[in-house]
């Protein structure tokens, strides 16, 4: 009798415990890796990756945090992993923003640094040929275009004027106008669209009095992206005409 009195509530507690456990299991699901947080962080890192050279310490810190998050997942500390992954995502986004702001300057600095390290660089790419004047390339700017458009974007007008000044100063230098598109749409149609962009720039320059014989055009369509990402900012950096000076 005494035993029963004591055991009763105890057994009730146990049942309660088990049932609340089951409820929890069904309400909250099984404890599992914070996959979404990890994915988000990875995506943010990927977005920042092609700019990692210009993203400074934050990018590396974000990378480290994501790694730590993965270690915690293996240790089954899912809360900790989620916190780390979220922090990694935030840092990666900041890194990307920072890189975007400093992109042009940083690229030129990097290029000059590379040249200083290696005074006689190997030919950059087969396509630019042996006549490619790498030094002068740094003084010319790339023009950007809107989606599906062959009109130079308004924020590229200054760059275009700078290039015109360069063309007038360096009267003996031929230039290849290289047209590019983003990866959306059809490869073959984009080949024509890239050419159309380059052709439009060439015609504009001829109207300004630049000798057309100095200006040749070449389209790479979507085949030679400047940025490999899938974001709108990557796409907009790929819709471009590059000025490639020849010796």
């Amino acid at each position: 009798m005494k035993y029963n009195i004591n055991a009763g509530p105890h057994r009730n507690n146990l049942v309660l415990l088990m049932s609340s456990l089951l409820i929890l299991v069904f309400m909250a699901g099984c404890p599992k890796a914070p996959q979404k947080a990890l994915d988000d962080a990875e995506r943010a890192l990927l977005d920042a990756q092609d700019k990692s050279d210009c993203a400074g310490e934050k990018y590396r810190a974000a990378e480290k945090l994501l790694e730590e998050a993965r270690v915690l997942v293996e240790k089954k500390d899912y809360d900790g992993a989620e916190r780390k992954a979220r922090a990694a995502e935030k840092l990666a986004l900041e890194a990307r923003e920072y890189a975007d702001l400093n992109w042009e300057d940083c690229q030129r600095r990097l290029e000059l640094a590379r040249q200083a390290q290696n005074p006689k660089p190997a030919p950059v790419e087969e396509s630019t040929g042996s006549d490619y004047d790498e030094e002068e390339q740094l003084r010319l700017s790339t023009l950007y275009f809107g989606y599906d458009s062959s009109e130079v974007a308004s924020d590229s007008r200054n760059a275009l004027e700078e290039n015109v000044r360069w063309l007038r100063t360096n009267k003996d230098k031929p230039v290849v106008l290289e047209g590019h598109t983003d990866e959306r749409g059809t490869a073959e149609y984009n080949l024509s669209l890239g050419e159309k962009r380059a052709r439009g720039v060439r015609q504009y320059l001829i109207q300004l009095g630049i000798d057309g014989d100095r200006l040749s055009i070449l389209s790479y369509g979507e085949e030679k992206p400047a940025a490999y990402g899938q974001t709108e900012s990557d796409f907009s950096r790929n819709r471009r005409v590059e000025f490639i000076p020849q010796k």
Partner: protein
Amino acid sequence: MHVLLQGVFMMMQIFSNSRVSSLLVAICLLAAGVFSSSLVLAQDQTKSSANQTSVNNGFTEPAPPPASGIEIDVRVGARRVLLPLAVPDTQSAAEDTKKVATQVQETLRRTLDFAGYFKVLPTDGFFFDPSTEGMSPADINFQNWFNVGAQGLIKSSVRKQGDQFLLDLRLYAVDKGQPVTLKYTGKPVASAGVDAQVNDFVNAVIEHYTGQRGVFGSRIVYAQRDSNGLKQIFSMNMDGTNRSQITKNRAINILPSASGGAVFYTSYQDGNPDLWVYRDGKHSKLSSRRGQNSGAAGCKDKLAVTLSMGGENADIYLIDAKDGKIERRLTDHWAIDTSPRWSPDCSQIAFVSGRSGGPQIYVMSAEGADQRRLTHQGSYNSNPSWSPKGDVIAFSARDQFNHFDIFTVDLQGNIERLTQDQGNNEEPTFSPDGRYVIFTSDRGGKGKRLWLMTSDGEIQKLLTTDGAGFTEPSWIH
């Protein structure tokens, strides 16, 4: 209620302690085990409903005639009835044929699964051991195969004959308990010929059930980006196997097509997008006019290409397939004209033109006459591929959400949708028998990969399970 909440609160405290996590995981596994059967059921239901929602077309290809006697239909989507086939492991008596046996059973299962007519039954669902069962009718317990739901049974074995392999491939009708006579004869093959022979057998199985032979073993060409940002041209079987690299240069190579034993492609190896041809094991330049030389499409002795003639403007021309000389200019418009694709009888050409603003699908005669617009919906329609039956042209279109999907249009302009809600789907190419379309898709978030679907869009299968960067597939005709 109050006590219950207290219990939950207690559990939450325990929950937050990571050391107890493993205990919870164990309990979860237990729970999962108990409820697994109902879960499987639920998954099956979502799968079939997903299939049904992904289908949106009025294509009316007749389903294969169901085998007589047994009424087991595995429905995928609205119309297609899949015939259940059992394909037990390929038997191999000796150690040195084991690898080939695995290759045979995998090729059988993969191609029969891709064919779009069969449901290959999972081997772990057999309640008996098929490995001990012989090849001949007297050795086969047809009641067992009937009980697992099979209507067809494919038995296979491999043995060595000298240096070669002898494949024994048989199809049995389970309800009759008898072998089916197929238009197929096996003969000893070297290991390199194993896939071709299995393909031939599967093509005969397809012919038995549908009246029209299959085309497994036919190949496509495609371009793939490498880690250096370059692109090379490859070919492979329509089931994604037997790949071979065609270009091996240090340049960007794009837009391959193949017909009449030649592979045409555009390459930047000389600094300009030139048209190259790979024929009799040799690469040579076919058209290297300044500007665009691309998208060669061959039909009999004719070759249509896009040329921009010094970068002036992209138009479509016929050139001589041997020396690249221009035979005829087919389009002459200030807008972009590109991507010519022949009708099966070589009398008409579908192409893409930007003359109305964005790219749209047009058709014209083989001489460039009677140019007319075929697609009027959407602002970006491109990548035409003419079906071998001649009745429709597949193309990719950008929809109102800026996603690309694959559609067909008939010569009256009627549109059918083949893909929907699955990432971006582009670059369709028809199989020589018109049954399938191979295309690129970025669904699954793993970059561009090649997929194969039945030409009604009902069944869609991933072809390239490794890597990404697969683009511009074109079926070899």
